[in-house]
């Protein structure tokens, strides 16, 4: 099953500059393993240990996976995944 994954600018060095790549997996966790297999190094930029990094947002069909089960969020053929780094900072 093919899932389109939108890649943010800062991670495009891992995808030869591609803005979107096709990946597979029945869950976000599997999808990330599949991405890593084809784009080595990307996993470390998405995960902090066993969790999605605090300042990385992953959406499945426009839903932030923080609200849909995190890495266990299920995927079906034709789903769209978007990865976006948080826009955040501040004096602290």
């Amino acid at each position, binding site marked *: 099953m093919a899932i389109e994954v939108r890649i*943010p*600018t*800062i991670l495009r060095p891992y995808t030869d500059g591609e803005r979107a790549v096709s990946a597979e997996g029945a869950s976000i966790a599997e999808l990330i393993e599949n991405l890593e297999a084809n784009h080595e190094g990307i996993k470390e930029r998405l995960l902090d240990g066993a969790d999605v990094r605090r*300042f990385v*947002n992953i*959406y499945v069909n*426009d839903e*932030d996976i*923080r609200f849909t089960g995190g890495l266990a969020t299920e995927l079906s053929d034709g789903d769209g995944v*978007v990865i*976006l*780094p*948080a*826009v*955040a*900072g*501040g*004096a*602290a």
Partner: protein
Amino acid sequence: MVVLTILREHVDAIIAHARRDHPDEACGIIAGPIGSDQPTRHIEMLNAAMSPTFYEFDSGDLLRLYREMDDNDEEPVVIYHSHTATEAFPSRTDQNLAAEPNAHYVLVSTRDGADAEGTEIDFRSYRIVDSEVTEEEVQVVDRYTNERTTPQTEVAP
């Protein structure tokens, strides 16, 4: 690219936004055509952290913003926020979280009474790549000589 060229109306709008949200940090972007390095569309964002020391775009707002820019063939040319009690220089947090290597990171400081209308205010711009900060000159213009789209300011989302 060691200069940020930006319209006066956008500088004024960013400063007004920072003053309005003081003492919380204000944040937003100015989008522009991909590859143009020309900020043309100002979008004020809500600081979901609503904090005097931190800012973060709401994750839903962020997705809508990037979809809209995608549809318009735009990218974030300027990403701005205010510091309300410290100088207009990227903090360690700013450096570590900067994730748009092509953007100009603009900081304004409303400290020491600069939140008041008509006072001097620091408005500075930086590139932040791999947590490395490089300050750049800010060139304020009334109009772009090779303007690509009509500038506009909107309050969204």
